[in-house]
């Protein structure tokens, strides 16, 4: 599985980058726009003379932690909300629907731009705000999955056994929705990384000098005609990562579906 290899390698690099003999992301290692394979900068240098490789790896760290943590927070919160809303219906369901409608109809970019100005953007604030933004999506998705599961006979069977709502939600319904919500989570993680890239590209994301793939593209975008590498390398990193995550999510879903069919 190439996707897993790429993700694992990237995660490993990102996690251990301080121990590796690569320059810091904000130190100048040479003249601007050094070509590939120069000493200290295997992928060349950017407009300021920093190593693109270092920055791409540190950017991976930012993107991966951001995407992962935001997705997990949103998954847990949204999952629980959706579980409750899907099982009890009523007011909770209306509320979840309303929230998700509001969030979906609200221009996310406006929210992020305003947020970037209102509170000082940092990886943490960005993570939390994106997580909050994604909660309704998970809630809605979970609600759908729960509704589908609640209609299945084994839930009735559990109730007929005298199981209470908590037991049914967590023992019967939740395990059956985990795979689909997890694969959705991975897809959302990919989406989040794209959003982070876009926000950073517009200049409202992860604050400089911390590298972010979107920010790296923006910093060199005007040199696209003369220095395509500086623009394309972060795009390639971003693309491969998102591609790998999407592939992983697809794979999980297809596994899940097959499991479903075999039953």
């Amino acid at each position, binding site marked *: 599985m190439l996707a897993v290899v790429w993700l694992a390698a990237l995660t490993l690099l990102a996690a251990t980058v301080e121990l590796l003999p690569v320059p810091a992301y904000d130190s100048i290692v040479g003249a*601007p726009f050094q070509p590939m394979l120069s000493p200290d900068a295997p992928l060349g240098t950017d407009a*300021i003379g920093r190593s693109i490789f270092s920055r791409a790896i540190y950017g991976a760290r930012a993107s991966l932690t951001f995407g992962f943590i935001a997705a997990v927070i949103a998954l847990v919160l949204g999952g629980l909300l959706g579980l409750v809303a899907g099982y009890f219906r009523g007011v909770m369901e209306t509320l979840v629907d309303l929230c998700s409608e509001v969030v979906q109809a609200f221009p996310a970019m406006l929210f992020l731009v305003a947020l970037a100005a209102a509170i000082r953007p940092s990886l943490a604030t960005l993570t939390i705000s994106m997580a909050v933004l994604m909660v309704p999506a998970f809630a809605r998705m979970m609600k759908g999955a729960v509704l589908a599961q609640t209609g299945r006979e084994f839930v009735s069977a559990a109730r007929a056994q005298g199981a209470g709502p908590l037991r049914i939600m967590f023992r019967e319904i939740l395990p059956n929705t985990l795979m689909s919500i997890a694969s959705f989570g991975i897809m959302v993680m990919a989406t989040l990384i794209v959003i982070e890239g876009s926000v950073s590209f517009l200049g409202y994301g992860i*604050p*400089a*000098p911390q590298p972010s793939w979107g920010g790296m593209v923006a910093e060199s*975008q005007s040199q696209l*005609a003369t220095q395509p590498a500086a623009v394309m390398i972060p795009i390639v990193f971003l693309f491969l990562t998102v591609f790998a995550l999407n592939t992983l999510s697809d794979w999980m879903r297809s596994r899940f579906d097959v499991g479903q069919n075999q039953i």
Partner: protein
Amino acid sequence: STEAAAQSDPTREAAAGGELTMLMYVPTRSFDPADDNTMASTGDATRMSAVYDLLLVLDPVTGEVRPQLAESMTPNEDGSVWTLKLREGVSFSDGTPLDAEAVRFTYQHIADKGIASQARAIASWKMEVVDPLTLQITIPSPNMHLDRTIADALPFIVSPTAVQADPEGYSSKPVGAGPFVLSEYVPDDYEVYTANADYWQEGLPKLDGLRLELVPDAAQRINTIASGAANVQAPSSDADAALLSNAEGQGLVHFGVEQSGGGWIYMNNERPPFDDERARRAVYLALDRTELAQVALGSADATAIDTLFVADSPYHESEVRFPEPDAEEAQRLFDELAAEGRPVELSYINIAGEVNSRTAQYIQAKLSEFENVSVDIETLDVTAARERVFVNRDYDMSPYPGAYKFPDPEPGLFNLLSTGAMWNTTGYSDPEVDAALAAARATADPEERRAQYRTVQERFMEDLPGLFTFTPTITVIAEPKVTGLSYNARGVVSWPEVGFAAD
């Protein structure tokens, strides 16, 4: 660029006719000069120049004032009363005459609105219409160089009739005496202008029409011109070398005029760490400003500003220079400050944008090579940054958007350095500098002025209140066939002569 420039001469005379499309950076805010507080050539000023023409023109290199709509502007002997004489027979496109009353009305209008940078100053003037073509202006503190302020910041005159007819809507329906008349305006998109048939200069403007289009992204502007969909981009002062070479690569030409002044980064002299001269000096010594210029402009040929005035300027002092980089000394100063319990920990308020962002990151990266110094970059949008830096003065370093230019030290250098002056956001205050600036303002004698400004330059190099980076250049990127381009010190195009080469 030399080759391309050689093939086309931007000042060569244009043939009559044709329609020119210029790409703009900044969306149109208003066509009312009373609403413009920046006079930026990249924004409304260039548009207004087409509609209103200019009263006086300030030469970008020599700092000389040339008459345009006005015939002359002269002071009395101490510079407390100025007389503005207007040309005969100039009228607005609505047919009403551009006379002394119109000028008075315009300045009063600006003062009343209270938005333009000179609004407060005008409020203290006494204006008197002596005869239909003569306006007398009495100013509270003598200034031998008010004509430069007028040429620089108050060159546009509105039609009083039009303003009074529709005060609400005037900002989008301007009436002036310029070479062009606004015929279509789509906010945030484009404007179309047609030649003013009654323009006061015979045979001008050259062009039949003008179209100004908004394209905020720099690379896109060049690509658009290269693709033939536009002819020229608005003059700007932060020419990014990568952009220029990109333009060259696509067969475009660019013209530049170097000016005194430079890319300018405020340092907050009113609070630690930069209330200490040593901290400011240490930053100067730590940075390699040439490298900074190269990174910011994205060009290996870029150079840093090394004197306040360019060599062509009468105030150029070749030996009064910015300090050379000296890492050891910088480190020593940082250590010294840290030892005194005043470590250099600075918050850098950055304004979103590519050049700004590179500059900030270069400074951060460079200073991070030193001990006892740290930089924390916070990027904000223009308005938020403005509130932080200009209103609240809650910053340590922050870039001036664009370059700070003074073709003549009046009024630019005065506004920048004298205590409490309009643009003195650094909070710099030095009695000696204040005195020298005031003395220079009060005299018209070139030698006297030169002496006073030498003192100012010497004090500046001692105190280093802010960080000057690269030399500003008014740059135009255009198709080779565009010609007749000239601009004032602000980089505002003088539209009448602009046109296409005859062939």
